[in-house]
């Protein structure tokens, strides 16, 4: 019996209605954040298949060395088969120890083989079948928000992502350079007065409320920085802000971070990709710090990317567009410290089209399984979010 059959067996024993309630906290307190790594991050150098000689043969200059207490550039041990990129030593590795992070290798889009960033990002965000007519005004997080009674969704992006497009109006706010709003309180009041009797009155007053809350939250952080705290930058700064905002106000979030399309000179234990990973790790750890212990216990972060990269390094010390990726699932209440989903031994014969990781866990099946457990959704609701998808029982939460 392989792992998948085992999980199926457990699922068969536990009725789904009960399984839907195993989440430690009431469903309405659950918070989700989807982090999209745009550009297709090189998953094989983050969750490193350290037991595979084929990996080391395929990546003569990019390979991350096997775990070795004496080698700071070696992978961090996650068990006999896998290791973690050393740039994540102080941020993500401790969460593994606390069983607050799990990895799902061989994850991605089963039905989108275009290897196009553009196509596959759309495919994932829409969460619809990749063949046939698509509805570009219906992203899967928006459909989830519609099914939840107390959803407070927000996209922490300059523009509303496809994932959040849909029937209900979801606010978005970029956090990279939030400054003091230019429209001051006096002007805000006059503007609200102008709209008081219009059909946009609610939109305008809600807008000012969110704007002021976000700014208040961020000015507290600025005050703290002025007291001598190290001031984070870039994505870490945004992620910390998101942590504070999701602690206080929002429970369904989305953020994206780019810069993962490493065709050339991506580096190994150090270098370009290591720097990006370091920042990502600090960002996610920073998020968990800011949302606080209670918030973290109720939160699930899912880190995804449109596809993986070629298993073998290319002639430019980089990697090209591939297929299967590795998704991360994090949170204070998850059943972590494990590598989940169907897996294969990593050797040449198991590569997809003799170049990439295969996809064994479909992104929709994974999200469907998560939402089912986190929110106790019924089958009909789940089908409205992901039509025709059978939820994967990964036992994440």
């Amino acid at each position, binding site marked *: 019996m392989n792992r998948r059959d085992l999980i199926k067996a457990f699922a068969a024993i536990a009725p789904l209605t009960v399984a839907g309630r195993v989440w430690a906290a009431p469903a309405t307190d659950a918070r989700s954040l989807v982090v999209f790594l745009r550009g297709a991050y090189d998953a094989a150098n983050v969750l490193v298949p350290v037991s595979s000689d084929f990996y080391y043969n395929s990546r003569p200059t990019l390979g991350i060395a096997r775990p070795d207490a004496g080698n700071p550039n070696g992978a961090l041990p996650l068990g006999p088969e896998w290791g973690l990129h050393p740039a994540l030593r102080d941020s993500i590795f401790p969460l593994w120890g606390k069983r607050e992070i799990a990895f799902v290798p061989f994850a991605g889009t089963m039905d989108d083989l275009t290897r196009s960033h553009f196509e596959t990002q759309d495919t994932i965000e829409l969460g619809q079948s990749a063949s046939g007519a698509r509805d570009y005004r219906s992203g899967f997080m928006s459909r989830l928000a519609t099914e939840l009674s107390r959803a407070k969704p927000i996209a922490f992006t300059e523009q509303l992502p496809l994932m959040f497009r849909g029937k209900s109006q979801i*606010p978005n706010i970029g956090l990279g350079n939030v400054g003091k709003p230019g429209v001051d309180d006096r002007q805000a009041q006059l503007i609200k007065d102008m709209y*008081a009797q219009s059909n946009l009155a609610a939109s305008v007053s*809600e807008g000012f409320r969110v704007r002021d809350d976000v700014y208040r939250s961020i000015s507290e952080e600025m005050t703290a920085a002025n007291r001598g705290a190290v001031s984070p930058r870039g994505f870490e700064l945004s992620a910390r802000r998101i942590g504070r905002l999701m602690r206080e106000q929002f429970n369904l979030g989305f953020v994206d971070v780019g810069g993962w399309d490493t065709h050339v000179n991506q580096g190994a234990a150090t270098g370009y990709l290591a720097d990006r990973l370091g920042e990502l790790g600090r960002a996610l750890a920073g998020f968990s710090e800011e949302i606080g212990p209670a918030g973290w216990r109720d939160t699930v972060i899912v880190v995804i990317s449109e596809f993986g990269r070629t298993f073998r390094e290319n002639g430019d010390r980089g990697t090209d567009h591939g297929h299967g990726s590795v998704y991360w699932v994090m949170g204070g209440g998850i059943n972590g410290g494990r590598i989940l989903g169907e897996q294969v031994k990593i050797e040449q014969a198991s590569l997809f089209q003799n170049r990439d990781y295969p996809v064994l866990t479909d992104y929709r099946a994974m999200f469907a399984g998560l939402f089912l457990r986190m929110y106790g959704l019924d089958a009909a609701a789940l089908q409205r979010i992901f039509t025709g998808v059978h939820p994967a029982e990964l036992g994440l939460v």
Partner: protein
Amino acid sequence: MVRIPKNLSRRLYACCAVIASVAGILGAVAAHANEFNARDLALMDRLTWGINASSAEHLRALGTERWLQEQLHPPASVALPDTVTAQIEAMPDVHKLPFDIAVAFEQQAKSANQVADTDQKKAAQQVYQGAMNDRAKQAAARTILHALYAPDQLRERMSWFWFNHFNIHQYKANLRILVGDYEDRAIRPFALGKFRDLLASTMRHPAMLRYLDNADNAAGHINENYAREIMELHTMGVGSGYTQADVEALARILTGVGIDLKSEDPKLKPELQSQLVREGAFEFNPSRHDYGDKTFLGHPIKGRGLAEVDEALDILVHHPATAAHLSRQIATYFVSDNPPESLVQKMALAFKTSDGDIAAVLATMVHAPEFAASLTSGSRFKDPVQYVLSALRLAYDDKTVLNTAPVQNWFNRLGEGLFNHETPDGYALTSASWNGPGQMMVRFEVARQIGSGSSGLFKPDLPNATDQPAFPLIQNALYFNGLRQTLRPTTLTALDKAISPQDWNTLFLSSPEFMR
């Protein structure tokens, strides 16, 4: 050539903010003698990128119907003001054809990839990417300059509409270097003409063939992407009765329609050579075409090469679903989120009887009572592009901006950047997509930036350039003789509380009335 008369208001622009209140008093005194017709103002605001004093004077001088005819039937080429032309002429590649542009950039990419040292290679690739980004910015600058200053305003509105209808995304492949040509040569010349010509010109443009992957569509390895979107988005509309088999048939008909950047012709069997068609970067390659017979929308199509495509386009353009779908899209853009079905039917009939003449469809729309009713109902909500452009046209009239980067930035912040919608459906035409809480906040911030000063619009993007003095003057003759009368008491009360001309502008541009 259409000329916009200069008028008195122009002198006011030279003045600074301090004088605004004085102008206000003068305007109020003169109100009755010079009052504009409110319906004309609403009509012009609806059909152009925004009303301003000089264009309102022009309409008044011409009369409503003559102005409408001028907008519906402009000459093929209408001169832009010299100050605008000079800016456009200074852009590289503006007169080059896609083939030459693409070949030059391909060459640059190739040399960058051949650099041995990996760091130097990375640097060379960054230079290449930077040059592509510059081309896209220049294309956006051209769009903005046309929109702000072209006298043939309705054609400019329709050019944006049709670009959005036949949307392409600048960040796919090398499209940044082609979006400008796509708009200038494939869209704008046909924006008020026959829809059939527009459909064909987008189909022959390498930007579209790349964007929707028809360049990869060949016999034996069919790519349905373009075929599907032609039916779903460009012509008949989703759910209008075509089947998956029709999509597959159209995809087969379109096999071999693609791009070729090589100077020499592809190697072909002798019997196929006469079938080869090359026009710049466009190529119909018969060795990639599926010569089998097809059935498309019930019509048998004899397999015979590029002529099949013409036949399929004729079938699509004459399909009743196409007339209805396009009419509904146009009415949604100009009239309301849910345009009256009676209006859509009138427009669709005009489409059919005029053999798909866009100007005829628009003429039917603007003369319909449903359209007249919509001018006073206040149900329209400007999308971000129209919002920003209308604010700038009102505030600066024919004083030419010297830098469009702030405008591009405002479009992007408001979520409607030029050439920046990833998916083929284009930006939403309905208000619900643009009036959410977050978006209203950004809109007020943009109102403040536009209202408070020249915002970098008059500082050329050149080293050591100096910022030319300019101020957005909205409280002008047009305001006192027309716009003020359309404001509700709540808005007037708020405006009366303004503490400076900048504050007044910010509030005016934030008002519910200016969002319509």
